[in-house]
């Protein structure tokens, strides 16, 4: 299963990267979701996969049985799932507002909202100084 999960995560990474590289905002959002699935699988696969041995302490005993799944990656993934939901929710709403305001979801057309598109004049103040030697 380690092999299969590694392949699945790899394919999810590939699909996510591909979608991230698109020009449409919606597709980038899908790419984000795919990447977070991939990362979760990567974390999950970093400890040995043990079927049907959850890290629980049975009643009446003070420690889990001899063999149990590593709880540390699980704790990490639990956090990651929740955070990625927050990111996705924010991104979805942000995208909706951007589309509503700008009327496009082509990132190339939004370029001038990010950087100054006209030539920036530099050193104009320098010339206003007297020229001493």
């Amino acid at each position: 299963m380690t092999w299969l999960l590694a392949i699945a995560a790899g394919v999810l990474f590939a699909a996510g990267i591909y979608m991230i590289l698109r020009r449409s905002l919606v597709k980038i959002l899908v790419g984000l979701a795919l990447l977070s699935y991939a990362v979760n699988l990567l974390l999950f696969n970093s400890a040995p996969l043990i079927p049907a041995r959850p890290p629980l302490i049975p009643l009446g005993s003070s420690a889990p049985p001899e063999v149990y799944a590593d709880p540390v990656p699980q704790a990490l993934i639990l956090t990651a799932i929740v955070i990625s939901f927050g990111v996705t929710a924010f991104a979805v709403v942000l995208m909706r507002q951007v589309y509503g305001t700008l009327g496009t979801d082509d990132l190339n057309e939004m370029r001038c909202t990010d950087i100054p598109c006209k030539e920036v004049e530099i050193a104009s103040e320098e010339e206003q100084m007297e020229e001493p030697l």
Partner: protein
Amino acid sequence: MLTSQLTWLVLTLAGGVLFAAFAPLLRRRAERLAAPLLALLPLAVFVQLLAALPAVQMGETAQARFDWVPALGLSLTFTLDGLGLAMGLLIAGIGALVILYGGAYLHGHPSLGRFYAVVLLFMTAMLGIALSGNALLLFVFWELTSITSFLLIGFEHERPGARAAAWQALLVTGGGGLALMAGFALLAVITGSFEMNVWAARAAEIAVHPLAPAAFLLILGGAATKSAQFPFHFWLPNAMEAPTPVSAYLHSATMVKAGVFLLARLFPVLGGLPLWTPALTTLGLLTLVGASLLALAQTDLKRLLAYTTVSALGMLVFLLGLGTPLALKTAALFLVTHALYKGALFLSAGSVDHGTGTRDIARLGGIGRAMPFTAAAAGLAALSMAGLPPLLGFIAKELVYETTLEAAAPLLLTGLTLVANAATVVVAVWVGWRPFWGRPGDDHLHPHEGTPGLWGPPLLLALLGLALGLFPALTGDGLIAPMTAAIVGQSVKVKLALWHGLTPMLGLSALTLLLGVGLAALRRVVQPRIAAFWRALAPLGPANLYHRFVHGLLSLASWQTAVLQNGYLRVYALVIVLTTAALAGLTIVLKDVTLTLSPWQPPRFYDFILVGVILTAAFLVTRSRSRVATIALLGSIGFSIAVIFLLYSAPDLAMVQFAIETLTVILFVLVLYKLPKFSRLSSTPTRIADVFFALTGGLLMTLIMLLVSRHASDASAAAYYAANSLSQANGRNIVNVILVDFRGLDTLGEITVLAIAAIGVFSLIRLGGKPGRKQRAVPKGGRTK
């Protein structure tokens, strides 16, 4: 006794900083009282320093030390000796006068409160330099003076010229500050300490160390930029954009002397280097002669004074470079003399500007009758500057000639000094005589004397120059001797007198005056020629090099910004993906040559089904052009992963994944019809290239995962949590215990992130632009402004 006085002084200064913060408030509440009240701080420091003077005259020094960051060798070491005390008296005394004068000069200015605050902050920093015994501490104060100087030059920040001059001063002195820091670090490497008295004690060891010349040159770089030595002198005349009280205080009397002060302070440490004398005398002479000739081309009162300040700083560096006891004594006297007459002249120039509205010497003339007190102050100070008896300037000039006549190449040095001194006399006449008593200039000036705040401080400074000159023995024993003793490192005798008999120095003085006054009378003939000469030379000057350098730097910055920050998200993502792939791939190839992957274990049949679903959905998602299908496909991936979690012992993850997946689908469905339809925007070659990049990235991640899972993971963390989950946290579900107990703060952070995201979502929906009001990102027919 002296140590406790020093401690009190430091405490006064620390309180002063807090006091300064309230200056704007005080000014708003009590416009009239603000200046006298705020001047109490420098006055208190001045009185404290005076009280410490007798002990210092007896040869005592004090040190007060508080640890700050002991691990870095950074301690708040304050030293009080003759040099620091004299500097401190100048800083505090002139500081009090400048605060009073500034209140009158900037009366009614909306930012007067800011002026008070920054000047007081500067004064504290400058006193810090004078009193620091630790090089790192001195460096902190040093940089603080650069920053306050920047703020004060750019005081009238609405004017582009003031902003540009402020930047220039900051860049030049800040660059020098970096060199200074490096020099200090090298000395600390040699000696293992940042304490300057440790350096002085081990001077012999430093002198022979191979790193010493580098340390010396770096420190000299710092001192030369701060004290405006050639070729860094150009920032100082431009700094005249500052209000005149600032020019008087920072850019003639105190801050620009910091470089000279530092060289004097380190004379016991570095004075023994063979490089010291040639480097300093060359630098000083170049600055001295060059700047005094540059001054002759100026017609603006403040710029005339600025260039003669540069030349005076050159004189000080030259004298320190000679390094004989006589030269050091002369340097100490000249430093005090210059601060007094130049401060007075600057303040008078400000009063003239205030009373007439111009600083152009071609337009000024005959205003002395209307402005008698200013004329008296400027006249007295100019007499000192020109070096006439019985003023302090006369004694200083006699000593300068005595020094050069005793030096190694008396003819050359005396000749050059004579040229510079004659030019100084010319400027003294132009600044202190011509505007007031010369031929009447412009008729439309309507000169009038200002309030006592405008003529009192310069008159006081000028009278002080007279008083100290009238009692030369007192000045020599009381002030100059302790200063020189602190520079040399042992007590010295200083006998000053007005009359030495008919000496060669007296003849040289007379010659200087004759030359100077003669040249000054020929202003209309002399000045245009000198100005034309310098104009012809300007393209080769360091100021032009500086402009080219700054322009080139800005061009480079905007070029590389245009390349890297091009505004295409796609390119950013691509750079990140490819960089990661290249770095990770390279590491694998270089470090893990064997490439043993984890062993293949036959999977169970439902593993095939789940992974099959994920693979198919991931592939279809990239091809999908339907919004509903995309959401369904994403959901199926999420739910398959949840089942995998469930099968492989992670029931908590499965539950959360199911819940979140459901929420995500609901969220998507809610905004689905507000979203744009999928459109194919990229060209086919781009898409093919992207497929290649994506597959590279995916392959690399698979490889990494297989390489990682080959190693048995470190289970010690898991074992710790398993052993302590029940006993310490009373929980049987170890994953939950980790989240809410062992790593509870991390979860708090996570909740905070979610809360911020929620606030962001809410405000985007409620406060953001109304969706539906469509607006093109790029309006037709033009680019956005």
